[in-house]
């Protein structure tokens, strides 16, 4: 509770800082090469209700709780505040700092440095950045925290909720190039990623390599991305220590499922057609982790119509496992009863982990209402159906949870940018 309170206090301070400094924002005329500082920010205030009272509905695996079991109405699923400082030193050198405050795995709103990098504009088309930058992933991943940009309350959780790593530390290059009428932006990243889990646990990814290309042709935008790296996270260490100690068969299970120097990859291709009065968006992605995080394929499609300030939309979204979601574990045959009980508990623990690989289909209907040119109110209903015995994107299961039940989720959110 204390953490949470301190977090809110920090958030309030950030907001005050942003609003106080906001008077000077964007006052500078670009292009003349004079030093300038721009302050901008974004935020979402949202509440979510879930019909499932034996588990929490979350939008990101990096949240300690959500709507359902912890609270029937939760403000923590989507609420966040972001602040960005853009400093241009001259025509070539600039720097950016972005802080984001949102619920994390420690049940706090402690601000996190989302980006901190310096940029060198080699030519008007080529930019190099050094520091913490957005990882090249998915169609909307780079701005997934800025609700105002996209039509929904949140990007489809089946695609975006499971690997919520958004930034990495390293170097990237962005190149703009034209091919006839097609305008392209290509990005390449190399570095590492470090994500705080439940304090003091962290997830690391070394030798992270990312490639992305966005092609815009009139109202059509197509983005393909590929991200790979070697991940290590101390998740379920005790279980894997016990499996290792049990002998060669257990050690083989540890090698198969522990997140210990595992090559992971995320590939996606998505398209957005937006002529102004309507939009159609679709994206398919594939993740491979060679670990308890599993291998998944996900896909979503979304369409909306803009009538003045109102944008009703529909989304269908699906994720399924293409790797193991259960394991026979260690053989129990021939073991003394007492040892068999312990081994059975290990097997159950392992299968509980593998069961967290999400398999779920959602149908969502929503309405975006643009209140002002920087504020939108959104209402969304999601009908989420976890399948194949999975508990989908739910977390914090309580003993009363029954897999396979459809969940009804209602969300209200106000998104703003400033």
């Amino acid at each position, binding site marked *: 509770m204390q953490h949470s309170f301190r977090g809110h206090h920090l958030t309030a301070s950030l907001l005050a800082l942003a609003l106080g400094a906001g008077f000077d924002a964007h006052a500078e005329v*670009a292009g003349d090469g004079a030093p300038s500082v721009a302050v901008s920010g974004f935020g979402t205030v949202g509440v979510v209700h879930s019909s499932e009272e034996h588990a929490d509905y979350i939008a990101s695996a990096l949240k300690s709780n959500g709507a359902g079991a912890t609270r029937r109405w939760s403000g923590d699923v989507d609420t966040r505040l972001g602040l960005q400082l853009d400093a241009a030193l001259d025509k070539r050198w600039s720097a950016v700092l972005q802080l984001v405050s949102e619920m994390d795995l420690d049940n706090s709103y402690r601000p996190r440095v989302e980006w901190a990098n310096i940029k060198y504009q080699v030519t*008007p088309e080529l930019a190099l950045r050094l520091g913490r930058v*957005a990882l090249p992933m998915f169609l909307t991943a780079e701005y997934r925290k*800025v609700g105002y940009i996209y039509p929904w309350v949140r990007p489809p959780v089946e695609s975006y909720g499971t690997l919520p790593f958004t930034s990495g530390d390293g170097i990237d290059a962005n190149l*703009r190039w034209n091919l006839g009428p097609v305008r392209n932006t290509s990005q390449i990243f190399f570095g590492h990623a470090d994500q705080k889990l439940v304090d003091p646990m962290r997830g690391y990814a070394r030798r992270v390599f990312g490639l992305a290309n966005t092609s815009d042709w009139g109202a059509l935008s197509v983005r393909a991305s590929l991200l790979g790296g070697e991940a290590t996270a101390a998740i379920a260490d005790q279980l894997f220590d016990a499996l290792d100690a049990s002998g060669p068969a257990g050690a083989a299970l540890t090698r198969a499922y522990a997140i210990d120097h595992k090559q992971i990859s995320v590939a996606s291709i998505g398209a957005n057609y937006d002529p102004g*009065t309507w939009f159609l968006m679709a994206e398919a992605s594939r993740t491979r982790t060679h670990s308890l995080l599993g291998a998944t394929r996900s896909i979503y499609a979304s369409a909306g119509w*803009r009538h003045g*300030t109102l944008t009703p939309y529909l989304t269908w979204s699906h994720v399924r496992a293409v790797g193991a979601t259960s394991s026979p574990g260690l053989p129990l045959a021939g073991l003394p009863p007492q040892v068999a009980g312990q081994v059975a508990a290990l097997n159950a623990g392992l299968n509980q982990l593998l069961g967290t690989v999400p398999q779920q289909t959602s149908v969502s209907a929503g309405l975006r209402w643009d209140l002002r040119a920087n504020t939108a109110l959104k209402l969304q209903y999601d009908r989420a159906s976890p399948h194949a015995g999975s508990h989908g994107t739910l977390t914090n299961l309580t003993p009363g949870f029954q897999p396979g039940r459809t969940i009804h989720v209602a969300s209200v959110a106000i998104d703003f940018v400033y």
Partner: protein
Amino acid sequence: MGQLTPLRRRATLTLVMLLAGLAAAPAPAAASELVVIVSARSPVTALRPDQVAAIFLGQSVRFPDGAEAIPLDQRLGAPLRDEFYLRVTSKTPPLLKAWWSKMVFTGRGQPPAEVADSAAVRRRVADNPGLVGYIDRSALDASVRPVLVVQ
């Protein structure tokens, strides 16, 4: 026909001037003529709507001849600005705000600088061959060159 009294003559004159004034004055926003301009010193003679859109949306940083292009906006909320973006990019003010939020919050760029009105845009553009702006046609003069009449 009797002679016009001085009073009636003045009233008639006023009416004629008023009518002439109405015809010459900028028509309401929906019917105003928008032109995209560069400096008279710029070698650029014509731009296509998609080229103008790309420059103003931060997707393109050069004129077709390869020279660097810097867009200049009218102030936020100006009817001329909303009309320009609707016609050239099919974006309403909220969509344009979302677009620039995407650019700013992915570190890809900042929106164009803004100046007060068509006369201010013309002055700035006339002084700098790298700038490109849009103004009401009635604000045109010899210091700038129209490169696209926005339909």
